[in-house]
């Protein structure tokens, strides 16, 4: 889940010229083939649409209980 402040994330993505990160075709096939994984946008500064993924990935599929996830601030990476 990409969770960064609005503006910075989009600028970073634009700079890196990686439209694949914003392509969600057929089960994120492009992302998976290029990066071996997938990323979902979750703007913390935005409305509740983005927080859907934060909620979703914290839900244990087997029990429905909350589970911990690790947040990485992409803007803070070297």
């Amino acid at each position, binding site marked *: 889940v990409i969770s960064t402040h609005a503006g910075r994330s*989009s600028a970073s993505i*634009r700079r890196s010229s990686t439209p694949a990160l914003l392509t969600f075709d057929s*089960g994120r096939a492009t992302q998976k083939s290029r990066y071996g994984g997938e990323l979902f946008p979750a703007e913390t500064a935005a409305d509740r649409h983005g927080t859907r993924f934060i909620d979703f990935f914290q839900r244990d599929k087997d029990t429905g209980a909350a589970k911990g996830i690790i947040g990485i601030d992409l803007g803070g990476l070297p």
Partner: protein
Amino acid sequence: MITNQRQYLITKAEIAKFEEAAAAARQSDSSPGVDPLIHKAMGDALASQLDDLKNDVLEYETLRAGGVRQRVFRSLRELPQALIEARIVARLSQRELAERLDLHEQQIQKYEATGYAGASLERIQDIADELGIEIEESVTYTVADA
């Protein structure tokens, strides 16, 4: 893959939430303070995940309804999925299968969650027998170079 009723109900509840979020996202072309590029990506991402969840539910419902009778697999690596599917098609819960084999429910849950990692061949055979799986498969050997 959904393997039991609990996961099924949880997934259905997630679908309802994703549908609400996706519908809300479609209603606006922008979000305050969010780059339009990211706004569109959020909507696409929601729709994409929603598709995944719906496919999972459809797959499970089809199996439960007996809509799948046979699979063609090309590798033993796909055997665990066959065992899981066969149980769902037989409408046996993980607990019911475990009871038939005199095992704990958690053991079947663990097998299925790990793709039957660590299960002995004998155990796999017992489960396949209990589920009434028939395998008609040709095995091709690789001949060593002379």
